[in-house]
């Protein structure tokens, strides 16, 4: 019997993303849930290299990121199939700054579990690429029943 509202995985293509997916499947099994929401944020808000200048919002960059999103989501769906799981997936693609959009999403939706794969990044990388979710875990926990960080 289903015992959950939404279980949401913030997807990444890397090994940590794969671990995040496997963890999600474990959680779904424990909670006896059959639906997994796969979330990706199209966030072009990274440095353009022009000295604290950000990449200009433009259709081409967003289309590129949407292509990446599609590839990652397909990978996750293929992996679920390979695991022999019968979990149904839902794709959620948001546009905007990563953390802002995720917070907005969890405020507007009832999310039981939010799984966040977290890369190891040094200070230079965090500064250049932004999107670091680490400082916002506490805030997310105020909206979500359970936040699981996978490293």
């Amino acid at each position, binding site marked *: 019997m289903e015992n959950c509202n939404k279980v949401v995985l913030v*997807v*990444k*293509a*890397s090994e*940590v*993303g794969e671990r995040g997916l496997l963890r999600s499947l474990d959680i779904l099994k424990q909670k006896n849930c059959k639906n997994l929401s796969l979330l990706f944020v199209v*966030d*072009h808000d*990274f*440095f*353009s*290299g*022009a*000295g*604290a*200048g950000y*990449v*200009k919002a*433009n259709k*081409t*960059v967003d*289309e*590129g*990121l949407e*292509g*990446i999103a*599609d*590839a*990652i989501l*397909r*990978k996750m769906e293929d992996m679920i199939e390979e695991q022999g799981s019968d979990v149904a997936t839902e794709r959620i693609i948001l546009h905007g700054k990563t953390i802002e959009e995720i917070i907005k999403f969890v405020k507007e939706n009832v999310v039981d579990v939010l799984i966040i*794969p977290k*890369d190891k*990044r*040094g200070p*230079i*990388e965090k*500064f*250049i*690429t932004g*999107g670091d979710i680490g400082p916002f875990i506490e805030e997310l926990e105020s909206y979500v029943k359970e936040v699981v960080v996978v490293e």
Partner: protein
Amino acid sequence: MKKVLVLLGILMFLTATSYATSLRVGGVIKNEHGVPIDEVEITILQGDKVLAHTATTSNGSYFVEQHIDHAIDSKDLFVEVNKNTYKTEKLKLTDILESKDADGDIVYIGTKNYTMLRTITPAFWISLIILIGIFVLISFEVFHRTVAALIGASLLLFVSYTLGTFDESYFVISFEEAIHAIDFNVIFLLMSMMIIVGVMKKTGIFQWLAYKSYAMSKGNVFKLSVILMFVTAIASAFLDNVTTMLLLAPVSIEIAIMLRINPFSLLLPEVLASNMGGTATLIGDPPNIMIGSFAHLTFNDFVINLTPVIFIILVVNVFVMKFYFGKEYKKGKVDNVNELLEKLKEEYKITDAKLLKYSLFVLGFVILLFITHGMLHMEPSIAAMAGAALILLISGADISEIMEKEVEWATLVFFMMLFIIVGAAVETGFISMIATWVKDLSGNSMVLAIIFVMWVSAFASAIVDNIPFTATMLPVVAYLSQTIPHAGNTLWWALSLGACLGGNGTLIGASANVVTAGLAERAGYPITFGYFLKVGGPAMIISVIISMVWLLIGG
């Protein structure tokens, strides 16, 4: 009546003799590097009495002709030279020639050439602090580089016209000198290429090229990486590196994810190739545009001198990348290559074939103009402007949208302000100081000069933005090229190769590296500074070694 006539006679005699003497003085004033100095105040003195004033022209020359109504003691004539940031000197006029003109009037002719020496003034320190400050602000990404440059340029002019009004030693640069320092050939060339690329982007050609690369590789990942490297390098040779990576990198990431390999194995070779390809032509990278404009080097000069060595560097780096990513390439597996191919073909098709035709026609036309611009004595910006105007006309693209979204006005303003800041450093003598120091280090040795310019440029570009670095080095290399025997254009190639290839050294070495890192991070693959250094550092060093050998053997 008789008395009146005598008086009149005396008056006429005096009038006739009052313009019987002329003084003509001329010469050329240069600085210690032999560069003519304009706007030097020239005062001709007899003892302490001022006879005439003038100023030098843009070629450092001056000439004054003054009618003197009294006798001149030619042994007591001086020329005083005065300009801010130079030592004021009172120079005795020697070897004065006394002659008579056609009317029988006496003419004194003197020549005084002089090399003025610099003096350290508050203006020197102000321009130095601002130049270094800009480098720091940009390197540490405290502000947007345009903001940093605008602050610097406006401060220089503000100080000149406030403190400098009351005390000349604080006058750094005049508004006219500031405008003169801006290289509008660079500005218009950049703007026009942004317009051309902005229109071309809409056709989907770049993404299609990435799909085609995969099709040609027939599922072999190493082959794919090599093809992508060359496609990226060629695109970057004509279009800006950042746009090339913003368009190609997402497709490469997508292909890597589908192949279940780490995207670094495709992205890093691509971005390194992008910086290499941009080095190959006049228009491939902003430092080359600046060098070409300053040194009057043509598109063909760059192709003849740099394209061959860049090709060699690319080939060598294919093997360097195989060393790093060989295992990853072998991992790539696609169960059904044709299915993936069909999917990519559908996703990355040409979205506007008609626009593509127009764009390719215009690009071809512009490249033809670039090839011939030297023969036509035409600035390359004119070729680009013609192309931009033509592509807007025939494509029907929305000019407002293009101007708003595709032209990087912030970048253009950055360049303009940067030229002013470097111009001020030239005016106050700081750049001369660096040039003299570099010359002393290298002596008259061409070998040492090549090594010094290339490696300093490479390491500096790996750390700081190569655009302000190149702008600062332009007058330095100009001086070295003039003073080192048989230098020719070799040192310009050294600067170009060092400044452009150096960008491959670190993650922050080039804008293309930074945007690629941003895209990779969004996919879940952050490129760390250390990882990039591990791959890019050796690739950069190998590239610069090849370049150095190329120039030393006379390539």
